[in-house]
């Protein structure tokens, strides 16, 4: 191809608009043709000169911020508005849930501690060489034994016809409060029954049910100013059965 024809393509070549095949061929031609190379050099210099000269004007920062402000409003305000609509209840829910969790957590911790102490009393008594101070299967013997030792009296159920056997009883203390600790047996398992005066705060609202962390089942209720706790490693059915007997007696 003649130089004249190549020069007609020089601008497109230098603008990067020539197809790759032609660009390679023209590049090779420029390496061997001083006249065309000089022409290309001049055009490159012009391109550079216009590039440098054309970057001339800078906007004020005031205009920039004015425009940025004017275009930032619409899309962001909508999203901000939506964010707040969602965020306010979300924050309230979060605060409430934290408060509830704290309260429940504190309550759960207190209940857990309370049950742990009952479980400790239960286990300690069974581990003792003298689990009970009054050894008797006769409720009419056990009940009077507590008189004068604790500041209240209670009724014990008749166990005839049931699987439960009364092993005996002992005086116990929980939160500086004296109480009755009775031990029953069912199928070679011991179950403790604790009876305290109902003082509200200390023993308030411990829920019944399994104490998973301690592997014990617990039942508790308040009756005639007394608070009953039935603790044992037997099934919940047995715990509830014994609880029912005690309730009926009380």
């Amino acid at each position, binding site marked *: 191809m003649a130089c004249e024809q190549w020069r007609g393509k020089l*601008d497109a070549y230098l*603008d990067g608009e020539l197809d790759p095949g032609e660009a390679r061929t023209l590049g090779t031609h420029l390496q061997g043709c001083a006249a065309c190379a000089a022409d290309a050099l001049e055009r490159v210099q012009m391109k550079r000169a216009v590039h440098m*000269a054309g970057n001339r004007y800078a906007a004020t920062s005031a*205009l920039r911020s004015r425009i*940025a402000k004017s275009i930032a409003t619409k899309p962001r305000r909508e999203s901000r508005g939506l964010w707040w609509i969602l965020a306010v209840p979300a924050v309230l829910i979060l605060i409430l849930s934290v408060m509830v969790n704290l309260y429940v957590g504190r309550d759960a911790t207190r209940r857990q501690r309370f049950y742990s102490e009952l479980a400790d009393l239960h286990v300690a008594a069974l581990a003792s060489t003298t689990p009970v101070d009054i050894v008797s299967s006769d409720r009419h013997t056990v009940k009077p034994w507590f008189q004068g030792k604790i500041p209240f009296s209670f009724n014990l159920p008749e166990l005839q016809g049931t699987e439960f056997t009364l092993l005996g009883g002992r005086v116990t203390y929980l939160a500086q409060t004296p109480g009755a600790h009775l031990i029953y047996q069912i199928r070679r398992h011991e179950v403790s029954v604790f009876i305290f005066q109902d003082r509200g705060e200390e023993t308030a609202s411990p829920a019944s049910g399994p104490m998973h962390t301690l592997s014990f089942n617990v039942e508790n209720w308040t009756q005639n100013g007394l608070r009953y706790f039935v603790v044992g490693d037997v099934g919940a059915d047995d715990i509830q059965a014994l609880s029912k007997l005690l309730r009926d007696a009380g």
Partner: protein
Amino acid sequence: MEVPDQPLPVATFEDLAMPLFDQLYNFARWLAQDTAEAEDLVQETYAKALRGFSSFQPGTNFRAWMYRILRNSFLSSRTGLKVMVALDGEADESLLPPESNTPESILIGQADRETVQQALADLAVPFREILLLCEVEEMSYQEIAETLAIPMGTVMSRLFRARKALRDLLRKKNEGGRHGV
């Protein structure tokens, strides 16, 4: 220079438009040749583009779209109506004559920045704008075609004529400078 397609599904108008601010202002200032008018043009461009952003097709060239809005705003302005002249017969110039290369033309290529700026300012607006889009904005011919709403062939012929016009102006300035010394 090929510019990747700008719009992304998550990009806001602000994300796409603000990076173009400095260059748009420079272009507006070159077109209007007046600071206050250029500021108005840029503001108008952003306002129009924001309003029309919902109709902007993702995947098409955002930069070319913004420049087109700016240019159309300029064309409809009082200054734009006065300075934009018709370029007769440019579409017919498919065969472009080769430029001659002389020691003088190399000298022109080395003209100082201020001289080139003056020559650019003196150019007819259609030549000035296409040179700015090509050399300053480094737009591809395709982008220039989109921005100016003209066919690719017209981009090439107008660019050729714009470069020639600039050379002529610089040559005159060069000769005038030499004669003046």
